[in-house]
């Protein structure tokens, strides 16, 4: 009586597939949500800072001052959005956000340069977005420093000194993502996030719906085993999960140009492990929630931390230790390491075994808890 009967399991699969096909809104979520999230994150969530709007108050208005402004715009970090005269005009532009930084060149800039006197230029920065402010400060610092070094060099050469040999140089090379584009970093993570959300929500919904409509009660009085029911319910969603995985992978590779550098077969097999984990999470949610609304709320209560704590948006290294541990409770954390490792660094299991193991342990844990909670009783 305790054995697994394939016929019963298969009936559930067939029934579920018919229901999914008839439930257009859910099918829509399964197919459209991945694409929507992909384009949203692909374009909107861009942590690269460039073209910072800069208002210029050039009181010198000479070839020298224009040369300096060019230095700023040449880096593509700054772009001149307006010219102004007077602090009041500058302030109002910083206030209404039409400019994020202001460059003030004093009237005696050219004169001081000619006389080889130290000149002082000013930059006002809107610090409300720390990311922009930080980028603006460090880049402006660098531009001015470079400029003053070249100026010093040419001055010394004029005085008959030989070319200056810098005592220290840094030769830096960025590996894996040489252009430091955030999209290359984001797309692999998105695959994980999308797979998690789609499969978790749909599985939880399909099970809670049975409770809500009373069909679960009818199922409980049949001889069907909990495992047959559970597997039968999730089998179609494995298909949907794999579909969104392929969709996101293809769009990510061909549209956003983020190639997979590592082994595809390793990527697929670890993705299936992740898929099983998120499906089981969906089952777990359904054992707690009594209505679809509750299931939705629980799912969101889980999605938010998984976005914030997993390292999807913010680096985990800079989080407090306790928060890092909490991140360890989120399966996406492990999967992100795996995805980024395979996508960007082409590493294999020797580098990823810890994350694969972490994900596997999480899967077994949540499976056990769900199986214990998923009883054929209605209490």
């Amino acid at each position: 009586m305790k054995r697994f009967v394939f016929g019963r399991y298969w009936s559930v699969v067939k029934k579920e597939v018919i229901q999914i096909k008839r439930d257009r809104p859910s099918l829509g979520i399964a197919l459209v949500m991945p694409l929507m999230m992909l384009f949203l994150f692909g374009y909107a969530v861009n942590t690269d800072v460039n073209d910072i709007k800069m208002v210029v108050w050039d009181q010198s208005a000479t070839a020298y001052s224009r040369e300096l402004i060019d230095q700023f715009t040449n880096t593509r970090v700054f772009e001149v959005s307006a010219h102004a005269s007077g602090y009041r005009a500058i302030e109002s532009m910083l206030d209404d956000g039409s400019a994020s930084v202001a460059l003030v060149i004093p009237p005696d800039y050219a004169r001081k340069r000619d006389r080889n006197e130290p000149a002082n230029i000013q930059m006002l920065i809107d610090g409300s977005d720390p990311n922009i402010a930080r980028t603006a400060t460090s880049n402006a610092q660098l531009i001015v420093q470079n400029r003053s070094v070249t100026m010093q060099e040419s001055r010394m050469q004029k005085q008959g000194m030989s070319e200056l040999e810098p005592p220290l140089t840094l030769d830096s090379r960025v590996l894996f993502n040489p252009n430091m584009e955030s999209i290359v970093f984001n797309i692999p993570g998105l695959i994980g996030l999308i797979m998690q959300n789609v499969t978790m929500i749909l599985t939880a919904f399909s099970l809670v719906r049975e409770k809500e409509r009373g069909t679960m009660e009818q199922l409980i009085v049949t001889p069907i085993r909990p495992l047959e029911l559970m597997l039968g319910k999730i089998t179609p969603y494995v298909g949907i999960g794999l579909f969104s995985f392929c969709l996101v992978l293809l769009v990510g590779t061909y549209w956003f140009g983020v190639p997979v550098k590592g082994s595809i077969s390793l990527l697929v097999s670890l993705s299936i492990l992740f898929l099983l984990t998120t499906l089981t999470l969906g089952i777990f949610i359904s054992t707690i929630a009594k209505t679809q609304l509750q299931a939705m709320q629980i799912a969101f209560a889980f999605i938010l931390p998984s976005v914030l704590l997993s390292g999807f948006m913010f680096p985990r290294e800079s989080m407090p230790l306790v928060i890092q541990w909490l991140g360890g409770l989120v399966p996406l954390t492990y999967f992100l390491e795996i995805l980024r490792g395979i996508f960007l660094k082409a590493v294999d299991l020797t580098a990823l075994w810890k994350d694969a193991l972490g994900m596997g342990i999480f899967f077994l844990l949540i499976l056990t808890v769900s199986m214990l909670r998923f009883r054929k009783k209605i209490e």
Partner: protein
Amino acid sequence: MNAAISCNELTKRFGDRVAVNSLTLSVPKGSIYGFLGPNGSGKSTTIRMLCGLLVPTSGSGTVLGLDVMTQSEEIKQRIGYMSQKFSLYEDLTVEENLDFYAGVYQLNAAERKQRKAELIEMAGLTGREKQIAGSLSGGWKQRLALSCALLHRPELLILDEPTAGVDPVSRRIFWDVIHELARQGITVLVTTHYMDEAQTCDWIGFIFFGNLLAQGTPQELIERMDANNLEDVFIDLVKQEEARLAQARAGEGGR
């Protein structure tokens, strides 16, 4: 005794509340047993314990000779259950619902085909096989639910207010089917609020506040209570019990 259901001191508590209090009853094989009582009296809880949906707090019970505590999975293969709420898949067609339950009860292909044809005929659903179940009217839905509960030829049929909210014609057709099933030897346990339905049962049990107040054939009960009809029996029993409880409470307060 040859009983399809027999329970002894069956009790179910939800926290402090006693839903079913030491219920002892037996349902003879092949009979129709009408389970009567006001709303919230413990009828559904009793039925759910017998079906293996709920675990009894104490007491014992057997269904078709199988223990409700330990053999509920074996019981499930041999009973048919239909709840007061329509609990089939509204987004599946008549035929798809039948196919699903045929699969769940592991009917083989030949048996499935035969049973489906028989039951569609019995329920009068011929020509509606491809209709979405959610679009059927109340009476059709109940008969479809009954068909699904009968697919695996259960020996015992448990019906929880099967005719609540169903029109008189559909109710009559439904009960004709129930009597026909009883003639074929199937035991039927049914709860209802309609006394005309109860009148046609072989046995009747009254339950109130989780206690079984009276049991017998409809005629016996009417004679014993010296009443005109079953409805009076029902109302008298409820009044007596309420008076007894009020007295008990007053007695407690006086001490």
